[in-house]
């Protein structure tokens, strides 16, 4: 079917216009939600302006603990983005129809999570106005030497994939035509492998540093994947349940149950890996275990992270046990709170419980603890709000199209 460029442009702009209309229309609860998120985002921007003016000295970071709340959140959110693959994979590869409803939402979560990742990285930079130095040809892109350059490639690539594939599918449905599998299926398969790549590369960022024995082990990459596939789908389940109840969008119980099963298996594998790590660190304690000692038991009276990690592991174990029990897992009323708690537990374990202890003690044995300041907390809250904002907008645009309400109405003369 021949379509002129004019019609294609009209289609696209109409899509944007209708999407914006859909995103800005809703109940008072919707507006309250978006309003609260906007306030948080503005607060985050104000806090960030302090950081731009006075430098990163307004954060709790220092030469000893040089990465803090921002990079902790970044690490965790890459996992959340990668977890979208757990929804995409069954839908397209195993062709499990139960998942096809959840696919677009999973990809929406991935996009929101990736935007948050990029925002956290920019927030953590000492010289954000110099980020163009990373551009190839114009700047100096130290690939393949630096793992950060690999991370830039895979994260932006994954963002591109997760924007373009749903965009194509939605545009087709918006037009009223069936999306052509020939166009998007190869990219779907690419995105599945890519999702594993983004999280492995992020793990390699840390695992490739012999200076930090807490991170420098072979299990870090697989552990990242396991915890991502436990925490990510947990978040997706909560989103799906919310959508099902609030937005009148049909999602089968089977979808939720299968996702819950994925979480359970991933959480069990995660615990096995955790057990393996604990054995290695504590069976015969060497100097290399000193960071693990700080995290789990404290060092020289410094015990800031001890309650956090034990709380995280305790709730993680509890949630995993509960999820392993079939009647509990299939009961949505119990599943949602368990999923939320598991999500938070993995956030602590992978964020604070991974990044901060890597710096304590310093390579020369000095012990300096880390406490985030109000600037860091506010910027973090603002970026999380931005993520939820993006997710809400994406869902608000995608679902009406999926349900068939939102369609392109071309001008009569164009036909």
């Amino acid at each position, binding site marked *: 079917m021949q379509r002129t460029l004019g019609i294609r442009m009209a289609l696209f702009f109409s899509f944007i216009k209708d999407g914006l209309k859909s995103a800005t229309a809703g109940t008072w609860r919707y507006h309250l939600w978006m309003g609260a998120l906007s306030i948080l985002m503005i607060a985050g921007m104000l806090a960030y302006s302090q950081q731009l003016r*006075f430098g990163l*000295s*307004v954060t709790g970071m*220092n*030469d*000893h603990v040089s990465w803090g709340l921002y990079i902790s959140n970044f690490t965790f959110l890459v996992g959340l983005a990668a977890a979208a693959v757990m929804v995409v994979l069954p839908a397209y*590869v195993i062709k499990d129809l139960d998942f096809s409803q959840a696919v677009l939402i999973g990809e929406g979560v991935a996009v929101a999570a990736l935007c948050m990742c990029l925002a956290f990285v920019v927030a953590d930079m000492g010289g954000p106005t110099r980020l163009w130095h990373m551009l190839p040809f114009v700047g100096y892109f130290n690939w*393949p*030497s630096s793992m950060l350059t690999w991370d830039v490639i895979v994260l932006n690539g994954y963002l591109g994939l997760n924007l373009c594939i749903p965009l194509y599918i939605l545009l087709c449905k918006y037009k009223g035509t069936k999306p052509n599998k020939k166009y998007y299926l*190869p990219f779907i*398969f*690419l995105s*599945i*492998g890519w999702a*594993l*790549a983004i999280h492995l590369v992020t793990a390699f960022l840390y695992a490739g540093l012999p200076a930090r024995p807490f991170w420098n082990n072979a299990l870090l990459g697989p552990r990242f994947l396991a915890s991502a596939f436990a925490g990510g789908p947990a978040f997706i389940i909560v989103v799906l349940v919310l959508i099902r109840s609030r937005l009148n969008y049909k999602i089968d119980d089977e979808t939720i149950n299968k996702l819950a099963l994925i979480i359970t298996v991933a959480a069990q594998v995660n615990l096995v890996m955790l057990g393996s790590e604990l054995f290695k660190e504590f069976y015969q304690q060497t100097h290399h275990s000193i960071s693990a000692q700080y995290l789990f038991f404290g060092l020289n009276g410094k015990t800031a992270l001890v309650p956090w990690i034990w709380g995280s592991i305790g709730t993680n174990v509890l949630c995993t046990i509960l999820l392993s029990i079939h009647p509990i897992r299939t009961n949505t009323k119990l599943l949602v709170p368990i999923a939320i708690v598991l999500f938070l537990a993995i956030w602590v374990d992978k964020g604070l419980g991974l990044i901060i202890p890597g710096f304590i003690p310093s390579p020369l044995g*000095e012990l*300096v603890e880390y406490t985030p300041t109000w600037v860091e907390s506010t910027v973090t809250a603002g970026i999380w709000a931005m993520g939820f904002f993006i997710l809400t907008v994406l869902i608000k645009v995608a679902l009406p199209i999926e349900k068939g309400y939102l369609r392109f109405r071309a001008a009569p003369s164009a036909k």
Partner: protein
Amino acid sequence: MAIKFYQITLSSLFVGTSILWASGKDSTLTQKIREHSNKVQVDFETNDRAAFTGETVDLQLGERGVKVAARIPHLEQYPCTNCHGAENRPTLTTNQDRRSHWQIEKTHPTPGDAECILCHQSNDDMGLHSLAGENIEFDHSYEICAQCHSGQFKDWKIGAHGKRLSGWAVERVIQNCTGCHNPHHPKFKQKQPAAHTIITPIRK
């Protein structure tokens, strides 16, 4: 399966580039030093401040030419005729408000004052002497220290002990023993450190 193909391609790409990258790394440091050590002559424009501007003497008892900072320009109570008559025993010719020799704090070799003549001439010669009685000039007083401290002397000649007064690229001039050590009280004193370290940057 399509997934396997993509995963294999990506992983082999990753491994291949890593191997290529790793093979371009430098050889070990010792190899590098061994291979490039032929050149001794380093010829470039040096800073005026790199060179030592004081008086020097040539090291005796040494292998290749090493310059030692002269000591005599820095001696306060030298020559003896500054205060004493030229004849035999001391009669103060000037009313200098100087410490008398027996008031020098001496802990080396052992506390006490019988050992002054161990190093100093007891007759009307102005110089120092070795244990065997040979004269030693003040500028070459290291020869006295070398008698007992042969280990430190050996280290001092190669640079493992003592201090180099000139820059690395200019002619080597080393400090003589008494430049750092008071010969009568050679141990370094206790004092407050010149700087204070805070463990991590202070928050504004």
